[in-house]
């Protein structure tokens, strides 16, 4: 139910008389129109987390990498320490 899927914002939809910003979001090749009212900061190229047609959050790409960096460092540390 609370499923939210990250997708890449590929274009903004500009129309007259719209109540809020919308954009086209690419989910691994599937394009969907998404309401951007709740993430006004989202720019083309950003990944946004989308739930029932609404972008709820812009994915922080640096934070997304941190867990992998931490685990890699741990692995290197262990290799240095030896068995």
């Amino acid at each position: 139910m609370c499923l939210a899927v990250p997708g890449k914002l590929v274009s903004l939809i500009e129309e007259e008389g719209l109540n809020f910003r919308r954009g086209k979001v690419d989910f691994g090749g599937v394009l969907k129109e998404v309401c951007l009212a709740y993430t006004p900061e989202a720019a083309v190229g950003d990944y946004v987390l989308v739930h029932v047609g609404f972008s709820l959050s812009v994915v922080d790409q640096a934070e997304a990498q941190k867990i992998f960096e931490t685990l890699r460092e741990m692995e290197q540390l262990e290799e240095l320490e030896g068995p």
Partner: protein
Amino acid sequence: MKFLDEYRESATATQLARLIRETAHRPWTLMEVCGGQTHTIVKSGLMDLLPSEITLVHGPGCPVCVTPVELIDKSIAIAALPGTIFCSFGDMLRVPGSSKSLLDVKASGADVRIVYSPLDAVKLARAYPSREIVFFAVGFETTAPANAMAVWQAEREGIRNFSVLVAHVLVPPAMEAILASPNCRIHAFLAAGHVCTVMGWEEYEPISQRWHVPIVVTGFEPLDLLEGVQMAVAQLEQGRAEVENQYRRAVRREGNRPAQARIAEVFEVAPRKWRGIGEIPLSGLRLRERYRAFDAEERFPVGVGVVEESSECIAGLVLQGLKKPFECPAFGTRCTPEFPLGAPMVSSEGACAAYYLYGRRPCEGSESELPSAAPSR
């Protein structure tokens, strides 16, 4: 897909599981709140990666499951009214009311439609001005901004043939209700990441302090859940009880302020009954006075009786993490996703349905569980 696939990597999962084994020295019981998390945990067999010290129990975080039978009956009665188009997310359609489901009433001719977004229901209202369009507004805080926007937009555009049947529930009061139960055996929570995307985690800090329980805001992929477990166990082992954020790529402390503002404009906090648990004070949302004209319950005063739940079903105990689904004598026999007796068997995100679908049974002669083949029918 980016930001999904890399969080499902087996090698990294194994590494995280090892880290958990090194961290955990005493037995701890953790509850993941959200049904989406339960689904990932059971589907990917994460419990088998965890050391025997760690027990995961599954919380009440499936809004489909906790929507009271009376409200399902009401949705069915409204859907059956001539001239109505009843719109819902797909997962509500199979949920059994006291005698049938929305899918049954659709089969007998009612105009019931699955929509992807509440805005699609508003679109239908524009397209069919002579029909009554009713949207089943079910969900946690994650879905509230979308449903609030639909009502707000309908009001702004003066759309009169649109209304919502509200079944909104809130996570923190349910967590408090579980903690307040005299039988509570939860040492830490993995909080629902997408709920926190909207609400942030400020409201969890007093809960963590009051009950001295670690709360880790956690994502939905296998690696997210393992890292969430690791962070919670580290807190428990160190005697800390804080709110931490595992789902850093999506959740900020303050949450999504524009979304919160729209929710607060359209909805107000109200008591709500949870299927399998009962009424929890201030645990739901209802439309504010200004938007009451869009309330389907007021527009269509269909009478439904009070409904008795199956006496055999132990849903309340499962939803509070006191029993595992397979400890119910009806599990997989008299109660299946096709013919559910109770809430957690209803949606694939309910704990019972997840256990049923992915064949989770207790291992014979051992306390731990191992996956086995799905029960045959």
